[in-house]
């Protein structure tokens, strides 16, 4: 079930409805008792006193896809997940739009929740993806992950 052969990357903002699609699809597995999910949204933070209007994401795509497969396999085995999915945006995502979606399914809540958290942390730390924060006046600065 891991990543279901789907691509990690999604061009532009990720529609919230995608989350419901996976849940409906995976609900057919009646040994699943828990779904945990995380969505990251672009915030209108102030950069040099101007609100961020969008983030433009670029990535080393082939490396990111390979690394994501490695992370997914490890997390799936470590937590005993029935299914998991990670989607990350490429290109422009406006503030108030979704740039990251992580979802896990497991028999019990502890595995689903902890597996989801681990995926979020590792996606942010280990995938070669870069966000350029864009403000109104055609300025930008490169995003820094805390």
């Amino acid at each position, binding site marked *: 079930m891991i990543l279901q052969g789907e691509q990690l990357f999604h061009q532009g903002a990720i529609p919230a409805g995608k989350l419901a699609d996976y849940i409906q699809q995976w609900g057919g597995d009646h040994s699943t008792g828990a779904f945990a999910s995380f969505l*990251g949204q672009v915030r209108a933070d102030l950069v040099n006193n101007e609100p961020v209007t969008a983030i433009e*994401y*670029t*990535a*080393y795509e*082939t*490396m990111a896809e*390979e*690394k994501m497969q490695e992370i997914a396999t490890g997390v799936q085995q470590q937590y005993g997940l029935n299914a998991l999915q990670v989607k*990350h945006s490429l290109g422009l995502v406006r503030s108030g739009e979704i*740039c*990251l979606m992580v979802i896990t399914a497991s028999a019990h809540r502890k595995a689903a929740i902890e597996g989801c958290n681990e995926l*979020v942390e590792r*996606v*942010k*730390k*280990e*995938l*070669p*993806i*870069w*966000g*350029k924060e864009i403000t109104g006046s055609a300025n930008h600065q*490169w*995003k*820094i*992950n805390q």
Partner: protein
Amino acid sequence: MTDTLTIRCFGQLTDILGSARLEVPITNDSEELMHLLLKEYPLLKTTRFIVSVDRKVIREKTVLTPGSEIALLPPFSGG
């Protein structure tokens, strides 16, 4: 066979260098490559980055061939 290495750059490095690709004469290993790059592109000293070879981050001296896929990666900021 080619006698140059093509190096991909990402994130803020594309701003700093004004390009997403650098070409340098081939070197035997990653340490020699770094010496050469820092000499040819001194702006690289202004930012932090790590190096990947064939889509794996390298931490130690690594042998290079003309077919090596080399990239310079500033701190990741996905999510």
